[in-house]
């Protein structure tokens, strides 16, 4: 086995994969892991190389656009310990093209595709479950704690949908924020965060939504298990309709 190291960043990961593939090493006998801060770690270290990473991306985009998507979602998952699988997946994608995502009997392909699928599922879910609140100054705030780092594509979704309002999306777990000022998106991290006061109107609309939520269910068909399996309780914290339960 050849052992390779990278610096733990997503860019570093793609750079290392590009480096290994350019070396001509067989990915099936290679291991790729994040470098730890020990003095005598074995393995060849690849430093972050934006040019190499970009060239790998453009090759992949040409040969297997679906795999680029998968890679994109995989990165949102921020999983640890799947780097070697990713290396082998990328090598296979360059070889077979888009149909690689159907090669689910291969353990590495399956690992990457299912991780990516989970991230994609949560992104879709958050498009529905995110709740904006109106603040006193008229801007809007949505808070969330998703398992996956979905803030970039999520913010792009809302920049097309709610383009006439100024809003923030805040990922409480990662302390990262997205801001739409009506024209452009920007991203950043917040060291400190406290929720500003809500507008008066906000409380009225919220009460209306809660009333709607209560009455739209058919009492004869009550089914809390089905509700929970569709909308896991971990998302309830920021759901307007689930406050006070």
């Amino acid at each position, binding site marked *: 086995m050849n052992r390779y190291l990278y610096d733990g960043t997503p860019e570093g990961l793609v750079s290392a994969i590009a480096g290994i593939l350019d070396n001509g090493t067989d990915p099936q006998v290679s291991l790729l892991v994040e470098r730890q801060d020990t003095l005598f770690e074995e393995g060849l270290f690849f430093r972050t190389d934006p040019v190499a990473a970009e060239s790998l991306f453009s090759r992949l985009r040409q040969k297997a656009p679906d795999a680029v998507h998968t890679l994109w979602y995989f990165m949102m998952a921020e999983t640890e310990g799947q780097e070697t699988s990713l290396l082998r997946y990328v090598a296979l994608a360059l070889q077979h093209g888009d149909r690689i995502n159907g090669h689910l009997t291969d353990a590495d392909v399956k690992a990457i595709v299912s991780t990516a699928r989970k991230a994609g599922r949560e992104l879709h879910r958050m498009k529905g479950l995110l709740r904006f609140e109106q603040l006193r100054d008229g801007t809007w705030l949505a808070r969330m704690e998703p398992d996956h780092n979905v803030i970039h594509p999520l913010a792009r979704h809302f920049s097309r949908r709610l383009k*006439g309002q100024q809003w923030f999306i805040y990922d409480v777990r990662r302390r990262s924020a997205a801001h739409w000022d009506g024209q452009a998106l920007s991203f950043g991290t917040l060291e400190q965060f406290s929720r500003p006061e809500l507008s008066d109107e906000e409380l009225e609309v919220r009460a209306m939504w809660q009333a*709607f939520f209560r009455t739209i269910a058919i009492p004869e068909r009550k089914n809390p298990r089905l509700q929970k399996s569709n909308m896991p309780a971990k998302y309830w914290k920021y759901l307007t309709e689930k406050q006070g339960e």
Partner: protein
Amino acid sequence: MDMQEKLGILSGAARYDASCASSGCGREAPLRGTGNTSQGGICHSWSDDGRCISLLKILLSNDCRYDCAYCVNRSSNPVPRASFTAREIVDLTMEFYRRNYIEGLFLSSAVMKGPDQTMEEMVRVAEILRNEELFGGYIHLKVIPGSSPELVRRAGLAADRVSVNIELPSSESLHRLAPQKRKESILEPMKLIGGEIGTSLVERRSSRKAPRFAPAGQSTQMIIGASPETDLQILRLSQGLYKRMNLKRVYYSAFVPVNEDNRLPVLASPPLLREHRLYQADWLLRFYGFTAEEILSEQMPDLDESFDPKTAWALRHPEFFPVEVNRADYGTLLRVPGIGVTSAKRIVAARRFSLLTHEGMKKIGVVMKRAKYFITCSGRPFEKPDREPLQLRQRLLLGDGSDPVPAPRQLVLFS
């Protein structure tokens, strides 16, 4: 009456409409406007009955002049009555949409002064949303039977989806339980909508600027279990609606007894399992290449409660099985119990790389619980090739004795 009380009455009265789909049409937000639509639809919440909420589903009014036996809003019922103004609904929709509570609006109504007056008011809501608020989100408008063709056309131009409820599976039942509604007043707007959708699609092929008419298509709904029709009659009706009227969806709504009326059956609880089986059969019609006559027959006019309709079909057709997963085409794979659209696609994609083995089937995520009795992998069966129908029935029912017979599940409404 304050808004919250009105909302309680008019959403409570709208909850028996099954449809909440927001899919079927992708559109960017209008310039300087708010809201777009997503091709796949988006669910925003799930209510206490487990059904998804994607649209603000409300009635314009529950003040009905009709007296349909099954309906909670019938004129003879002593329920509190309320009506919204168009502006109130528009504001509510926009406020909810800005907070991402909803994908859009689903507007229905009781028949107030008459079909045209009611429809006109409903269409006005949609037109204000589109033209004044520049709203680009999803709108589903219910069409009131008997409203004029001109109003139906305006509805289709403003809405993403329109639907006329067929209400009951036969015209005799309609006559008996909804005496003020006529079959023709339901079928005529359906035909008109179908025609306009077709015309609009043709026109848009030559000009991208041609107006879109109900781009997310037409649907309908019927009540199951309030009248004596068999499942075969119901499926034949749906099949006709899909084939001849080009409907996108037929919704089935288990009859919930909200009124006492000697024209109605007395049920201990809504027939949820029957509704679930009908949806499964409906899926077979739309995505699996089955016909109503394959699923049911005059000798066996009702769906089996113990087995899903595909398994029931498979048990009647031992000659079709086993299916060899490494060779069978997509359409044949779809006929295997337990193999759905996703699994069939995965099988076809995976076998391009290598022959599928038993382990391979599990790896790609095919649920083998039912499928294992009906397939072979490179000639090797999963189970002993003992296909004594009676025994197979038993094993399917008991799930090999290892897991208990699943309790009747309430259906999951797909969007």
